[in-house]
């Protein structure tokens, strides 16, 4: 498992793009927002938590089709499916490496972008907390979407259509926690619910992902 994780991480760092791309996308989306809604700092600080969450979500989505597609083409997935390691575990590792290369950098970059959007000072901690809690769920759900569409030619757009509705609860609770934090309210309830969603999806989604991947590979 560790070898697989190391391999995935190496590929992500080396293959040029996979790693930095999500981050760059996040940066650009956030920079474009003031252009589209105007530079008033009060307005920006109201919408900052939501914009940052949406940016993070889209950046996650963008990197999903690389998650399994390359391994599917060169046959690595067939090897993984017949390996002694259960496919569920292999896909969990894949999701983890996706989170390490996409989710974690987003979490770390979010405060800097928060500064640019004039996020309220009390909001930074909760923004980081909510992103750190929520992005693993995005990776795990995304793995399911990637597994579902991996056998389809040009499945990228279809995958977005399938994954985005699944992201709704995570987005609602995550952005709500960040928003309440920024407004100085108690973000405890949405944060707890977000943690619940993350833990639940981490526990259950790999089984669904492995099931659909087996159906595709069969």
């Amino acid at each position, binding site marked *: 498992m560790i070898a697989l994780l190391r391999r995935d991480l190496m590929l992500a760092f080396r293959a040029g793009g996979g790693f930095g791309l999500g981050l760059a996308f996040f940066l650009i989306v956030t920079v474009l927002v003031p252009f589209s809604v105007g530079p008033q700092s009060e307005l920006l600080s109201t919408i900052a938590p939501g914009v940052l969450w949406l940016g993070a979500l889209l950046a996650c989505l963008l990197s999903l089709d690389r998650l399994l597609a390359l391994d599917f083409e060169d046959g690595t997935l067939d090897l993984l499916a017949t390996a002694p390691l259960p496919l569920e575990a292999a896909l969990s590792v894949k999701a983890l490496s996706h989170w390490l290369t996409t989710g974690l950098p987003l979490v770390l970059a979010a405060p800097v972008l928060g500064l640019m959007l004039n996020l309220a000072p009390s909001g930074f901690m909760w923004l980081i907390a909510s992103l750190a809690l929520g992005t693993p769920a995005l990776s795990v759900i995304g793995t399911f979407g990637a597994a579902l569409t991996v056998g*389809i030619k040009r499945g990228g757009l279809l995958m977005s*259509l399938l994954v985005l509705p699944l992201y709704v609860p995570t987005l609602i609770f995550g952005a709500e926690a960040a928003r309440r934090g920024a407004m100085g309210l108690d973000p405890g309830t949405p944060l707890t*619910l977000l943690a619940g*969603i993350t833990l639940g999806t981490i526990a259950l989604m790999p089984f669904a992902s492995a099931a659909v991947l087996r159906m595709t590979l069969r």
Partner: protein
Amino acid sequence: MSLWEYANPVKFLGLSARVQPYLWAAAAICVVVGLTWGFFATPDDYRQGSTVKIIYLHVPAALMAINAWFMMLVTSLIWLIRRHHVSALAAKAAAPVGLTMTLIALVTGAIWGQPMWGTWWAWDPRLTSFLILFLFYLGYIALWEAVEDPDTAADLTSVLCLVGSVFAILSRYAVNFWNQGLHQGTSVPVATGGRTVADVFWYPLLISMVGFGLLFLSLVLYRTGTEIRLRRTRALLARSRKDV
């Protein structure tokens, strides 16, 4: 004699051909009676004016939109567990019907909301959940279209339906939490324990709901038959190609 006998496509087609004329007739009668009664013969509400008549479309459509997804969930499970092709095809056949029902519920709701709430659309929990349901239907149908091998397509869409159901319920509670509603409570007494609609509005509404249900059933039976024939055509074509 058991229900599973109808997992045999020939038996299914036979039974469905026998009951369909009655079903279509009953559906047509109920829909026409319910809607014309509602449209021509009910009084206006003292606050909503004549817009109350939209309820005879809106509520039945919304009801069937949810029931259609539920039916797809059940048939998907049957396919995954017992692998009856008819079951998977019934789920495929039901999806566009459910999509249309969702669309009707959304459109009539928007038209009603414009004069009553002063807005076509509000980010209210019920409205938002229906929009999400609409997206799930779109994704489900798109996945059926995209996968070439029919059995794989049935497998993948079934799992999507299961996972989607869980997330649809999650979203339902999430949006409740996210915004307090503008939408009034349900008008269907099974859900509320007591009736909130007066008799004059209730009877045509009931007939209309029964009509939409029967219409859904007839459409699904007919469409399932279509899917079975398409599948058989495909199989025969493949076989004759092999013979040559």
